[in-house]
């Protein structure tokens, strides 16, 4: 009994540490306060600013647009890479694994800086084309897609593909109808991971983005250095919106996967 109590207290303390700042900020985002601790009346003005302030709206849509482009690219490249690696000889597969591991273990600062050095300094590519930014973030995200698709391929029964061929499928059809179905959950996990990594990224964006473009991360870091309270408190609202959105996504995706594994178990 005492052990259970210790466990509960410990867990609650950690949850408090992780969630208190977000929740307190969420509370104050609905008031007129410009600092935590001020007692002011209820107000939605932060949310109005968030969705009407031209600069903020541009940054939010830009960040999500970028994340979408990067994640689609990453999912295509990472999945193809996992397929290629899985069906290659062992030595080539190890080469894939090694190269793929570099962005995963590397510090984001170094990844961002190295992509900047190669594309912008060495090749003289124009930042304003957004290409360095998209390439840089894809180099960060695609390896995580690869890592979530590869285990699916390993779990797959290799006889399924052979059976499809025996039953008259062309290799392309067998891939589309059999293999693709098996790896789809891995691709979805990889895609979600890529979205989150791109939304979270600060370093690669800083080193490769066009000067006029800001992501949420680069904007927040610059905004907190200034003293514009209107923007500052609107960012509290942004934090709250993102928190609610992420909670919904995580809950829904887990309910869906739980349902699906329930079905599979019943089969």
């Amino acid at each position, binding site marked *: 009994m005492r052990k259970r109590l210790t466990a509960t207290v410990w867990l609650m303390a950690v949850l408090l540490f992780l969630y208190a700042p977000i929740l307190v900020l969420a509370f104050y985002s609905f008031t007129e306060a410009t*600092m935590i601790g001020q007692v002011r009346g209820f107000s939605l003005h932060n949310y109005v600013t968030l969705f009407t302030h031209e600069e903020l709206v541009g940054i939010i849509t830009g960040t999500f647009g970028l994340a979408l482009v990067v994640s689609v690219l990453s999912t295509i490249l990472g999945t193809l*890479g996992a397929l*290629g690696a899985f069906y290659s000889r062992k030595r080539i597969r190890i080469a894939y694994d090694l190269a793929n591991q570099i962005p995963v*273990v590397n*510090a984001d600062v170094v990844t961002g800086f190295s992509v900047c050095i190669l594309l912008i300094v060495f090749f003289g590519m124009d930042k304003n084309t957004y290409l360095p930014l998209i390439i840089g973030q894809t*180099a960060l995200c695609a390896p995580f897609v690869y890592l979530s698709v590869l285990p699916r391929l390993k779990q797959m029964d290799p006889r399924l593909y052979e059976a499809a061929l025996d039953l008259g499928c062309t290799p392309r059809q067998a*891939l589309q109808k059999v293999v693709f179905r098996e790896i789809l959950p891995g691709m979805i996990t990889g895609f979600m991971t890529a979205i989150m990594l791109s939304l979270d990224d600060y370093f690669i964006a800083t080193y490769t983005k066009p000067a006029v473009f800001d992501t949420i991360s680069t904007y927040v870091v610059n905004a907190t250095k200034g003293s514009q309270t209107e923007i500052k408190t609107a960012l509290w609202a942004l934090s709250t919106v993102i928190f609610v959105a992420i909670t919904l996504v995580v809950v829904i995706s887990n309910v869906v996967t739980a349902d699906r594994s329930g079905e599979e178990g019943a089969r």
Partner: protein
Amino acid sequence: MAFTRKQLGIPYALFLLLFVVLPLLVVFYYAFTNGSGQFTTENFVQFFTNQKAIGTLVYSAVIALITTALCLLIAYPCAYFLAKGRIPHGAAWLLILVLPMWINFTLRLTAMKEILSFLEGNLAFHPFLNTIIGMTYDFLPFMILPLYNTMEKMDHQLIDAARDLGASDAVVIWRVMIPLSMPGIVSGVTMVFLPAMTNYVVLDMMYNSTYIMGSLIGSYFSAYNWHDGSMISTVLLLLIGLMSWISKKAGADSEEGGAIL
């Protein structure tokens, strides 16, 4: 047959070569050359003989060590309680614990910063403490997850067996639990230590004007000093290589990346 299955990997192989491997080679090239393109080790010699630079290296190492130790101390019991089933619905609680890592880290740091400003009156009074708190807050979920993944697979009967054979709590923890959970510890440490040495945004946001290794890259970037920036990157890459090698020796869970969600 129009294509073989292994040819599907060609676009990604090219992508990795061009945008992952080649950038590192170019970084090495810049690190070992000077402004006129001649080979030199001067960049490194200057770094390792400059007291201020070494101070930065030591300061980042201290911050990273404290942050990693704190994360481990907080996360280890958490992961254990959840994996051991001492708390009902362990998997759901785990999800709640790691959920914050999906929220943009600059926004989470903003939240922590506002709380600390309120508690301390002025952030500038405790830059070092605030940096440690900020980093622990930011990286904690990345420590909990690999620890939980390892401990969930761990054979908990071994712990009971050790107890039955008369081992004290300390002996059980030191001789049984920690060795069994080593892969998770190593994965967690590698996921926290390196960001803690390089993530200078935490320091910027907490008004800590001292530099860590990452800040050096940032300032060389702003000064268009590609050679010294590359030199610092190379030093960090060596460190990363060393850590990966150690974690491989220690048998870290290599699937950490795929298991984030």
